[in-house]
């Protein structure tokens, strides 16, 4: 156990010059930028504290759209970054001759970036609440929905991260993972437009499945917001898929000689 903790801290030391914090900061700026744009919109401001406008949920929805667009790229970038440092100078061989097994390398690298990602996600959740309060939402925070949404986002990101992590570790050509992330973002946006029955098969659109309101026609040319029940399948499916891909790719990479 102590050995593993030491290896974990060695791994983290390697990341010091990867500017991961800066990358997270850039994406945090983009996610929050979308939320702030929604919050400062005049339509949003005019109905900010009316119960039927679900202001908190509107903010969360805009955050989820930002996640659909930006998150696959962030996950591809960070997984590629941590795998790619070993490709340079063929550090895989150095690691293996230093007493690291392939499973250890796989677990410790993944754990290091996933923990960093969780911190980033919690920070974004806190900032989301702060932005909401700062722009004048006085209504109570929907704690339950917000918590389930954040946990679901983490689970979806876990599943996507395992896929990109495998690609980054398996193929030295990082183009594959990055190109997939762009296609993932696009398919995520497509998923928003497709019926749920179809988009359930698109993992990258699961962020948008967490959106908790929908538009309903209330009169001629008039639209209102309707609350929809919380969707739990993105959380469950992503968690199961993530675990499956993680275990499968761990086994697959063990067989490969780096």
């Amino acid at each position: 156990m102590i050995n593993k903790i030491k290896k974990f801290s060695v791994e983290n030391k390697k990341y010091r010059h990867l500017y991961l914090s800066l990358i997270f900061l850039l994406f945090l700026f983009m996610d929050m930028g979308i939320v702030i744009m929604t919050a400062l919109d005049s339509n949003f401001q005019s109905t900010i504290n009316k119960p039927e406008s679900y202001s908190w949920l509107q903010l969360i929805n805009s955050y989820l759209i930002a996640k659909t667009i930006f998150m696959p790229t962030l996950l591809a970038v960070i997984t590629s970054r941590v795998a790619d440092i070993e490709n340079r100078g063929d550090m895989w061989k150095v690691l293996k001759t230093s007493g690291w097994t392939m499973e250890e390398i796989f677990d410790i690298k993944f754990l290091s970036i996933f923990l960093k990602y969780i911190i980033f996600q919690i920070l974004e959740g806190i900032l989301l609440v702060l932005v909401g309060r700062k722009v004048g939402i006085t209504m109570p925070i929907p704690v339950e929905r917000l918590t389930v949404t954040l946990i679901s986002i983490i689970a979806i990101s876990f599943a996507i991260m395992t896929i990109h992590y495998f690609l980054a570790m398996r193929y030295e050509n990082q183009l594959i993972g990055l190109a997939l992330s762009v296609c993932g973002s696009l398919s995520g946006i497509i998923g928003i437009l497709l019926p749920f029955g179809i988009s359930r098969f698109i993992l990258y659109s699961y962020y948008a499945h967490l959106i908790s309101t929908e538009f309903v026609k209330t009169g001629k040319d008039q639209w209102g917001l309707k609350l929809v029940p919380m969707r739990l399948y993105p959380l469950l499916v992503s968690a199961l898929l993530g675990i499956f891909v993680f275990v499968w790719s761990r086994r697959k990479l063990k067989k490969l000689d780096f």
Partner: protein
Amino acid sequence: MMNLIRIEFMKLKKSNIWTSAVIIPMISVFLGSGNYYLNREILKSEWYSLWTQVSLFYGFFFYTITIAIICSYSWRMEHKDNNWNRILALPYSYLQLIISKIVSISIVSLCIQAIFLIFYYVTGKFVFGFKTEFPPEVFIWVGISWIISISVCSMQSFISMNIKSFSVPVGIALFLCFIGIGFYVFKGLGENLVYFLPNSLLIKGMSSNETEMLKVSEYIKMLISTLLFTVFFIYLSIISIKKIRN
């Protein structure tokens, strides 16, 4: 010079960038067409309406990101296995080296635009069966956005040249897209703000939000900005190469 460009293409030949160059515009058109199909009751201007839908996310994000991926890939080969030493030992000037990279990436970018245009035409003509004539403005929008993309290529090439990582320049490209959208959308900050970043220029050039033709003066301003950005980033790249050499 032609030799250098040919060599660049040889390097790109066996990469997967051509797959990305086909798939990304295809998905963009598919996405826009789906949205057009679902909103046909509101979107009644056939080709123009379809253009606003297909070029929206493509112009805002995915065209730039595809260029960023190609730039990253192109420079990655020089960062690997001390290829920098080999490159610097070639009997070509730094300017020629940089320009050959930008030209080769811009040609790939032109192919992406052509593929995008073909998918757009096929979708409008054969999937939706539009009766109206194909709008000639589309050629201008595709052409001008390709010209603007040269400044994006030079900027991304400069970033990829200086950052050894493959993925970080792509992340930076996404961030710049976001800033570009900000410059384009928030006109309250100044009408001319859009000319101060290649990414916002590209969005304006694609005309995803305004299907009316822009004024000639606006096109001239766009072209001048593109030229200035391209020259500026080529100059910065040459300075960087000199630093690398030292």
